[in-house]
């Protein structure tokens, strides 16, 4: 049963991912991105990572996608023919991707993974909170500093300063 659910979720994620990279309309690509992220959230749930799934939905499918849409709306609307996203190195890139995929999946199946135990407990927020506020205090505080830096960076790059010339955006 779980295997069936996994394959359904994996199929949704993969198809959404393919649409995302191949869609001509960027807005469409962002929405299929959301779908792919939701599929991944479902896979997290199957892996008993309840909290991770919640984070995935809240932060990625919610926040990050909204930011992507905002970023899209900041761009100038394309007029006339949209330049095709073709690149002369498309074929080598494709070959590289396929080789890498083959190599990785071969070695993943080849490997003798040492841990094949069922998780004894579900990763509830409680379990995570206990370890986060006891053992992982420093990483937790580093995260807040990273968020602060991201905010400063957005202001530095995105907002006009007093001495910046007018022609920049």
């Amino acid at each position, binding site marked *: 049963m779980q295997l069936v659910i996994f394959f359904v979720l994996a199929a949704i994620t993969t198809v959404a991912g393919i649409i995302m990279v191949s869609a001509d309309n960027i807005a469409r690509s962002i929405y299929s991105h959301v779908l792919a992220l939701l599929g991944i959230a479902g896979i997290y749930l199957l892996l008993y990572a309840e909290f991770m799934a919640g984070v995935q939905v809240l932060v990625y499918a919610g926040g990050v996608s909204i*930011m992507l849409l905002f970023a899209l709306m900041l761009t100038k609307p394309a007029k006339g023919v949209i330049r095709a996203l073709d690149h002369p190195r498309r074929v080598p890139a494709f070959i590289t991707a396929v080789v890498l995929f083959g190599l990785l999946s071969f070695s993943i199946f080849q490997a003798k993974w040492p841990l094949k135990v069922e998780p004894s407990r579900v990763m509830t927020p409680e379990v995570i909170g206990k370890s986060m506020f006891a053992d992982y205090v420093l990483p937790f505080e580093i995260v807040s500093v990273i968020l602060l830096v991201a905010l400063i960076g957005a202001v530095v790059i995105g907002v006009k300063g007093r001495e910046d010339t007018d022609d920049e955006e």
Partner: protein
Amino acid sequence: MIQQYLHAYSYIAIFALVGLLYVVVVLTVSRLLAPHRPSKEKSHPYECGLVPVGEPWGQLNIRYYVFALLFVLFDVETVFMYPWAVVFRDMGWSAFLEMFSFIVIIALGLIYAWKKNVLRWV
């Protein structure tokens, strides 16, 4: 316990499925029942009855992006508060101080953005 866990989430799956079905059913029924007579006026985008002006895809001011980013930052902050809220009673002061410094650091960013007039809605 694991069974119970999966059981709890089956409701979400059912809910999502029903939602999806609803959309499909409603659209199909409307396609089947409604008369299909397109005209130029009908295919215009609906803008409260007025004739639409300009492109649908307008360019926004870069300022709005900072709002989107602020939203994501506080989104992440909220995510960390869930596990904190659950264990707060057990862990007491240490957890309180940890979360307090976390929020102070992020609030610093908010004060900074505020003072730099980034939050002013132009």
